[in-house]
């Protein structure tokens, strides 16, 4: 549990606690749709990835895509959740132009994945556990395009029938930060598993937020669902403004009504989405075109054995084997690519130093150049070589920073050893050369030598600086210190 001060909304009647649960729709990575063989690639021409099943032609029947089921099971396992060996597909009935069959095939009462947990990594390095209620498989709908024609709405069915995992959390979060951490962690897990690319901008991960407020210690009050908030930042903002709205409603003597609301990021407010006359009765019932989904426990075991190392395990390993702090380990495992880069740099080297370089200099450089770690201008191999040059005293840490700058500027992933040679940056470890430089500096600054010897210890840094300057920064700092100490004393 976080020791940090709990998040509170202050109202006229005192402080309010926010209660948050999230429903995430994660688009499954698969070549084909959940119940048809049509392709799923993002960005194709409208209506080019549509089978007769997706367009709900007469007599067409759904057939389950086993790979989508495998992805849901992998995700369930990654969320430490119960895998239900028998689950059922239901029809959720409603009319809309981009829902060709007039029903969405979903899982209502018997989802494929049951209760699980997810561990949030908070900015202060602590962790917080949030319960997963369930994960179920369902079809996505198509897209209605209302702005393409002056009088007509156009329909693109490319997305219709694509597999989604709806992942529902328990109402366990208490602040916008926790909700943000939940989404980031869930996205990390999905990406590690390769079951969803987690891209909220392209809509392959979408989030509905359930928000309610209460006085600390109370039971739950009525919640509202805020729909389709499409970035982590907007989720956090939407929670803030929705919580404030609800506090005002309660404090003005009203009652929050259970409803679906839409977040308007431009206006920074939520607004009611559906009127009561349009309240949906989805008339769920088991889809008679599909048999119950029965999983072989041996198949589930096989999927379990095939799972990659997940972020929590990797983080624990970094803390245990590399001696990293919880925060550093958490940052490094957030993206698989970062972790892989880091491990390549750290392998056989000072793992803490490697972490400092990756999280410090490299991240700064990536930020500055606007590149991702997969396209880093400096490869893990060459960053590692740079660390090696420090380790074997070829260059000092200061020179290493200089060499790294050069490497970034080159943009061609140059070998740091070559830069050191070409620019003559090899550090001087020849005691004779250092003594000569020290002698010259002492001779030139006799007055300062006298001051130092009379007790002005602070001047030591001045001498170091002068010697290094005289040696163009290439003197081995430890040796320079030793020689200076000896000669000044």
């Amino acid at each position, binding site marked *: 549990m976080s020791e940090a001060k709990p998040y509170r909304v202050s109202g006229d009647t005192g402080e309010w606690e926010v209660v948050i649960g999230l429903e995430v729709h994660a688009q499954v990575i698969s070549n084909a749709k959940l119940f048809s063989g049509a392709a799923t690639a993002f960005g194709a021409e409208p209506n080019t990835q549509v089978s007769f099943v997706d367009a709900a032609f007469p007599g067409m*029947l*759904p057939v389950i895509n086993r790979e989508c089921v495998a992805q849901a099971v992998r995700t369930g396992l990654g969320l430490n959740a119960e895998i239900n060996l028998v689950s059922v597909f239901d029809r959720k009935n409603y009319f809309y132009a981009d829902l060709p069959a007039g029903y969405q095939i979903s899982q209502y009462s018997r989802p494929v994945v049951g209760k699980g947990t997810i561990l949030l990594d908070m900015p202060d390095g602590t962790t917080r556990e949030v319960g997963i209620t369930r994960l179920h498989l369902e079809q996505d709908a198509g897209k209605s395009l209302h702005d393409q024609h002056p009088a007509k709405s156009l329909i693109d069915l490319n997305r219709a029938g694509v597999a989604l995992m709806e992942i529902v959390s328990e109402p366990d979060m208490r602040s916008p930060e926790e909700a943000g951490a939940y989404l980031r962690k869930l996205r990390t897990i999905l990406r590690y598993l390769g079951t969803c690319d987690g891209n909220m901008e392209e809509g392959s991960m979408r989030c509905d937020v359930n928000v309610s407020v209460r006085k600390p210690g109370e039971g739950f009050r009525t919640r509202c669902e805020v729909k389709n908030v499409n970035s982590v930042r907007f989720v956090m903002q939407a929670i803030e403004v929705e919580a404030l709205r609800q506090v005002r409603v309660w404090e003005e003597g009203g009652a929050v009504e259970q409803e679906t609301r839409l977040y308007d990021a431009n206006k920074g407010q939520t607004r009611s989405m559906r009127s009561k006359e349009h309240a949906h009765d989805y*008339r769920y019932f088991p889809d008679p075109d599909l048999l119950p989904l029965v999983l072989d426990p041996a198949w589930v075991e096989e999927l379990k054995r095939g799972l990659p190392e997940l972020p929590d395990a990797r983080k624990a390993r970094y803390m245990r084997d590399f001696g990293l702090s919880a925060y550093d380990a958490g940052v490094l495992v957030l993206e698989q690519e970062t972790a892989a880069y880091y491990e390549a740099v750290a392998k056989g080297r000072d793992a803490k130093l490697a972490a400092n370089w990756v999280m410090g200099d490299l991240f700064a450089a990536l930020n500055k150049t606007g590149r991702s770690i997969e396209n880093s201008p400096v490869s893990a191999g060459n960053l590692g070589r740079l660390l090696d040059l420090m380790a074997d005293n070829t260059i000092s840490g200061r020179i290493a920073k200089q060499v790294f700058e050069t490497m970034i500027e080159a943009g061609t992933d140059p070998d740091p050893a070559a830069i050191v040679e070409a620019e003559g940056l090899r550090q001087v470890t020849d005691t004779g050369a250092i003594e000569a430089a020290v002698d010259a500096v002492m001779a030139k600054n006799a007055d300062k030598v006298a001051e130092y010897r009379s007790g002005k210890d602070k001047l030591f840094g001045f001498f170091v600086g002068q010697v290094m300057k005289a040696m163009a920064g290439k003197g081995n700092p430890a040796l320079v210190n030793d020689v200076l100490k000896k000669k000044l004393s």
Partner: protein
Amino acid sequence: MSLTELSIAEARAGLDRKSFSAVELAQAHLDAIAALNPRLNAFILPTPERALADARAADDRIARGAARPLEGIPLGIKDLFCTRGVRSTAGSRILGNFVPPYESTVTANLFRDGAVMLGKTNLDEFAMGSSNMTSAYGGVENPWQRKGDAATRLVPGGSSGGSAAAVAARLCLGATATDTGGSIRQPAAFCGIAGIKPTYGRCSRWGIVAFASSLDQAGPMARSVRDNAILLGSMAGFDPKDSTSAERPVPDFAAACDQPMKGLRIGVPKEYRVPGMSAEIEALWQQGMAWLREQGAEIREISLPHTKYALPTYYIVAPAEASSNLARYDGVRYGLRVIEPGDSLDEMYERTRGEGFGAEVRRRILIGTYVLSAGYYDAYYLKAQKVRALIARDFERAFADVDAILTPTAPSAAFGMGEKMDDPVTMYLNDVFTVTANLAGLPGLSVPAGLSAEGLPLGLQVVGRAFDEETVFAVGAAIERAAGFTARPVLRAGG
């Protein structure tokens, strides 16, 4: 003998002997359709050009010695089956312009085996009805008439009324049909022909316009039990495109027609003596028992205690599924679209579906929507599913003691067009003996077994264990042999 009087087996033999060509056989039936269909309305869409092209291809194969099991056999195709490039309406206005770009698995199987398509046969709209009177393309007249009453036109039953009338009137040698609550067996009985609803899962539902997915099953109709067996052999088989299709080999159904009755135990359910059942149907039933007993079978009274709940259960489950299955007919992607300038999406739905669906379909969509609604689901749909399981269990228990079950097919003979139209429940009672097999997923065959006092055909139904169509065919063939049903309808080719 006239080519339109042949059985499928006789026609196959004649084609192979080259006594006549497939084109001659097709033409004889096309002539019959041209002569009688204007009155009977059994075909919504005759396809003479397609039939002759199919027949010419068949003659080629026969000439090359490469004839397939149904080479050159002219069939009617119920207009619920999607046929590639041929308009498929489901008997509804809403699909009045729908030409499928794909072929249903069952018809594809028949054409794979060489069958010739004569056209698309009439049916109750979306297969909802027991009279064929709900078709948007007009009712079908039963080719049979009451003795001395040529004025009263009778219904062929439904929903496969067009297929049944076409087979009975010798407009085709056989036809495809579907059965959700009795839609093959009741019209077969009304028209004096045989028809089987196979075990659920025996035939693929892919490409058949869905009515009630958990009950719908395709099957054949023909004038003899053996012809049904031959057709089903081609229609049946596992289809990976239908998740409810059974992954089982298809037995030699035709061979099963010759199995002896000796040692078979035939169950007669006491609950099927329903109030209001006519004496002549009761007598026919007794006669059926006697025929089977004479051939060595043992007749046992059995109990199917939940029978009385079958009809209400059916009329909850079937409309519930239909209300959802028919939601896709919305005017957006294909079929009818009715829209006025300035209409909202909801208004387009209302106009399209209001004008596209007939009264019976609208009624069932409303019933189905109601029974699935929040607050009513448990009391109706869920309870119906529970009763359905009990009905299936009744049969399971019965089949521990008997090998097949014998019942009447329908509580009456064919009725007049326009009769029973005032009260839908009276119409629904036609299905009282047939819905149980759908609810339990079991095979059921109707065999013509005699004539009523008015001279109309009556049928007996044989119900078997799941995937034991062989015993069903054997018992049906035994009844057929004993009944020696040779009566023919008034309205028929060459009649």
